[in-house]
């Protein structure tokens, strides 16, 4: 049975993420879970490294029930961007390290908001730096606000699902950097990389390299970048169903050349997809993909889900024009799952 500890301030087991991690035994027998509480904003990050882990002896950093942005009563209407008032947030700019760095296998980072605000010689926000094919990042908002080159999410082998990488700072940055010299390919599933339109185009949304093992991107969205997806480095057989405001993503079934402003509630401060978005209902239905979106909403309801971290749903009781209940209005006027 896994050992669960609380992390927060008053009355919790640990007051910093790093003290919790340091207290996890070198071999976390039965699994160790750190549950964060939104008692206040976490102002220092964490490194998870040096442990002997396995499927049974895992490490998980997540939010306690009711503490994540995902649990907020207004999660479906809250702007999709880092906001600690809506759930646990970690904001830091550690000197020479990512805000959250994972170097062990079998480590899960779930339901967190993570932000970096200043530069050092390492500028990544969330980093998996090698050999973590069994680790996972899921349901996370990852943002950088500093104006310097950085990989917002750096994944070597680790799958990322329902993760949104947001650049509101600038620089020649990368939303998701997926490189692995050999072994398991990095898998980016239902991830969104956005660069604020206030910055102008720059950087790269999804980056892979032909010099490394091919990476996989499925159901991913890339907007606001100079390069949405690097031209090489992708497993084009297993990639697909990606969207962008530029050239097509890797694999088939892409939705490309979409107008940035038509896809999101705001291209500077709220990256929920909006009605009329061009990649609603155009994702892959592969059962291995995330069944729920970053807000916890079920995807697809038996038909194709959306591309990206967010699953659009018309407001209960009808769309803004009052014609639809519980359904989705797809681009081109198709209706799915609705009650007229």
């Amino acid at each position, binding site marked *: 049975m896994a050992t669960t500890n609380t992390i927060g*301030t*008053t*009355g*919790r*087991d*640990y*007051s*910093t993420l*790093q*003290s919790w991690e*340091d*207290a996890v035994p*070198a071999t976390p027998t039965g699994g160790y879970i750190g549950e964060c509480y939104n008692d206040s904003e976490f102002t*220092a990050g964490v*490194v998870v*490294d*040096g*442990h*002997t882990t396995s499927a049974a002896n895992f490490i998980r950093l997540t939010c306690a029930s009711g503490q994540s942005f995902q649990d907020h009563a207004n999660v479906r209407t809250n702007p999709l961007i880092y906001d600690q008032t809506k759930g646990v947030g970690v904001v830091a700019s*550690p*000197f*020479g*390290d990512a805000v959250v760095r994972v*170097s062990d296998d079998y480590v899960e980072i779930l339901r967190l908001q993570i932000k970096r605000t200043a530069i050092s*010689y390492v500028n990544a926000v969330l980093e998996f730096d090698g050999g973590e094919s069994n680790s996972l990042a899921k349901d996370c908002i990852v943002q950088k606000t500093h104006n310097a080159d950085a990989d917002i999410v750096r994944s070597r082998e680790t799958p990322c699902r329902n993760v949104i990488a947001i650049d509101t700072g600038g620089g020649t940055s990368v939303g998701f950097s997926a490189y692995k010299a050999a072994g398991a390919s990095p898998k980016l599933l239902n991830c969104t990389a956005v660069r604020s339109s206030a910055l102008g185009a720059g950087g790269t949304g999804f980056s892979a390299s032909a010099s490394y093992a091919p990476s996989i991107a499925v159901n991913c969205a890339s907007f606001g970048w100079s390069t949405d997806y690097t031209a090489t480095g992708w497993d084009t057989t297993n990639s697909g169903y990606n969207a962008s405001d530029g050239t097509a993503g890797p694999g088939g079934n892409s939705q490309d050349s979409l107008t940035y402003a038509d896809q999101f509630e705001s291209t500077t401060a709220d990256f929920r997809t909006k009605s009329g978005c061009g990649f609603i209902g155009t994702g892959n239905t592969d059962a291995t993909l995330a069944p729920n979106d970053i807000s916890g909403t079920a995807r697809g309801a038996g038909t194709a889900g959306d591309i990206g971290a967010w699953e659009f749903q018309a407001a209960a009781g009808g769309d803004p024009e009052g014609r639809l209940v519980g359904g989705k209005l797809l681009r081109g006027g198709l209706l799915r799952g609705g009650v007229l």
Partner: protein
Amino acid sequence: MAELLIRVVDKVQPDPVKAERLLRAGDVVSVCPDGWPWTVIERTNSEWRIIRVNLLATTVEALIARSSNPLVRRRREWKLDFSLLPNPSLVSGARTQEIVPLTRQQVVAAVVKKAAEV
């Protein structure tokens, strides 16, 4: 002022490669503002001590920074050498006080750069 949570014994890991990547005796675990609400576990864990000291930000940065060389895997490039403190027993053996107050001069004199990794 700041309060430093410091590991006073090595975290045990039989794998020597992984052990190098864990925090060791003298490494700073966390740095928090003066008056930080440390939890009961943090105040009583025999493997940690809390030091209160007025340090320059650059010293704090050094104490929690990793090497700029990406091939160096250890977490911290600098540590506190307890033998250089005026009273090393404050951070070893039985805990005599919840938070150990030290002067900047005392701490700076005990900060040492680790030897190169082999």
